C-alpha cells in the first residue's frame, strides 16, 4: 500500500508543479513573473525525466570496481544536462527582452503595454484620417 | 545516525522556510536564504554518507561557493542599486 502511494507520489507532485508554472505564465501580468513561471515548469519536466531514470537500490552511474553493482539509468541524465543549459540560455534571452521592453514602454505590466499600444494606434488612425 | 541528522536538518529547513516566506524585512529573507544554503550544503554531504557513496561532496563545495556569491550579489544590488554595469 505504502509502496503504491510513494510509487506515484513523485509523478503527482511533478504534475502539480507543472500546472503551477503554467498558472503563473497564464495569469500573472508581470513579465518577470512569467519568466519565473517558465523556470518552474522547466524544473518540473527535468524532475519527471530524472524520476524515470531512478532504480531503487541503485547508485549514481559512475563505475565502481564491484561488478554486480546496479546503476541508475544514465540516459535521462544526459538529456537533462543539455536541457538545463539550454534553459538558462532561454531565461537570459527572456530577461534581455524584458529589459528592452521596459526601456521602450517604461513598464513591464502586460495590460499597460497593450494599453499604450492601443493609444499609439488610435493616434496614428486619427492622423491618417486627417 | 546519519538518518537522524538528516531528519534534524529537514526540521530546521522547515523552520527557516517559515522565516524566508514571511520575513518582515528583505534582510530577514536574505539571512534565511543564506542559512538554507548552509543547511543544504550539509544535507548533501550527510546524504552521501547515508547512501554509502560519499564521493560526491564536490557538489557541496560548489554550493558553498554559489551560496556566498549569490548572497553578496543580492546585498550589493541593495546597496548600490546595480551590479556594477551601469
Amino acid at each position: 500500500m505504502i509502496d503504491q502511494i510513494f510509487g506515484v507520489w513523485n509523478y503527482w507532485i511533478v504534475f502539480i508543479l507543472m500546472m503551477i508554472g503554467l498558472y503563473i505564465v497564464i495569469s500573472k501580468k508581470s513579465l518577470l513573473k512569467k519568466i519565473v513561471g517558465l523556470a518552474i515548469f522547466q524544473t518540473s519536466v527535468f524532475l519527471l525525466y530524472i524520476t524515470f531514470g531512478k532504480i531503487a537500490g541503485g547508485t549514481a552511474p559512475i563505475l565502481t570496481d564491484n561488478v554486480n553493482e546496479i546503476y541508475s539509468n544514465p540516459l535521462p541524465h544526459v538529456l537533462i544536462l543539455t536541457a538545463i543549459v539550454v534553459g538558462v540560455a532561454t531565461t537570459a534571452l527572456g530577461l534581455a527582452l524584458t529589459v528592452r521592453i521596459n526601456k521602450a514602454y517604461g513598464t513591464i505590466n502586460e495590460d499597460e503595454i497593450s494599453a499604450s499600444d492601443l493609444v499609439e494606434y488610435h493616434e496614428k488612425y486619427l492622423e491618417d484620417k486627417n | 545516525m546519519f538518518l537522524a541528522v538528516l531528519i534534524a536538518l529537514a526540521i530546521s529547513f522547515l523552520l527557516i522556510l517559515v522565516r524566508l516566506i514571511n520575513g518582515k524585512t528583505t534582510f530577514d529573507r536574505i539571512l534565511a536564504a543564506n542559512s538554507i544554503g548552509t543547511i543544504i550544503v550539509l544535507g548533501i554531504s550527510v546524504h552521501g554518507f547515508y547512501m554509502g557513496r560519499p564521493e560526491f561532496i564536490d557538489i557541496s563545495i560548489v554550493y558553498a561557493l554559489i551560496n556566498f556569491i549569490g548572497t553578496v550579489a543580492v546585498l550589493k544590488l541593495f546597496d548600490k542599486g546595480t551590479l556594477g554595469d551601469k
Partner: protein
Amino acid sequence: MIGEIIINAFLVTLMLTIAIFIINTRKVISTILLTGTYSLVAALMFVSLDAVDVAFTEASVGAGISTILFLAALSYLPKEEKEEKFNLKHIYAICTCTIVSGLLIWASYDLPLVGQLENPAHQHLAQDFIEGSRNHIGIPNVVTSILASYRGYDTFGETVVIYTAGIAVLVLLHDGVSKISKINKEKK
C-alpha cells in the same frame, strides 16, 4: 530502500510548498530568493535520485547563474509588482490548470512505479552504454562518455543554441548607436 523513496517524497513536497508561495509574492526580490531556494532543493532532489552530474549543473547554472541574471535584470526593472484584484481571468486560468492536472494525474496510473528494475525505460540502451563505457571508452563516468561520444551531436547542437542566444542578447541590449559614431557626432 523505502528510506530513499520517502526522502524523495519529502523533498518534492517541499518544492511544491515553495512553488505555491512563489505565486503570491509581490516583491520581486523575494520572488528571486524563493526561486533560488527552489533550484537548490531541486538540486538536492537530483542528488537523491542518483543524478550527480545533473545536480552539479543545476547547482552552478540553475541556482547560481540564473539568480545572478535575474538580479542583473532587476537593476533595470521596477522593484515591485502592481497589485491585482482576483478576477474572471484568474478563474479561467485555475479551471484550465485543474482540468489539465486532473487529466495528467489520471494518466499517471498507467505509468510504471518509481524505481522498479523491470521498468521499460531500463530495458534497452542503458546496459549497453554502461558496458561500452567500461570496455570501449574507459571513462568511469558513464554520463560523460555518453555526452561526449555516443551523443556528441546533441552537445554540438547545444553549443549552437547557446551561441545564438548570446548573440541575440547582445543585439537586444545594444543601444543602437555605436561609440565611434557618438564620438564623431561630438566632433562635428
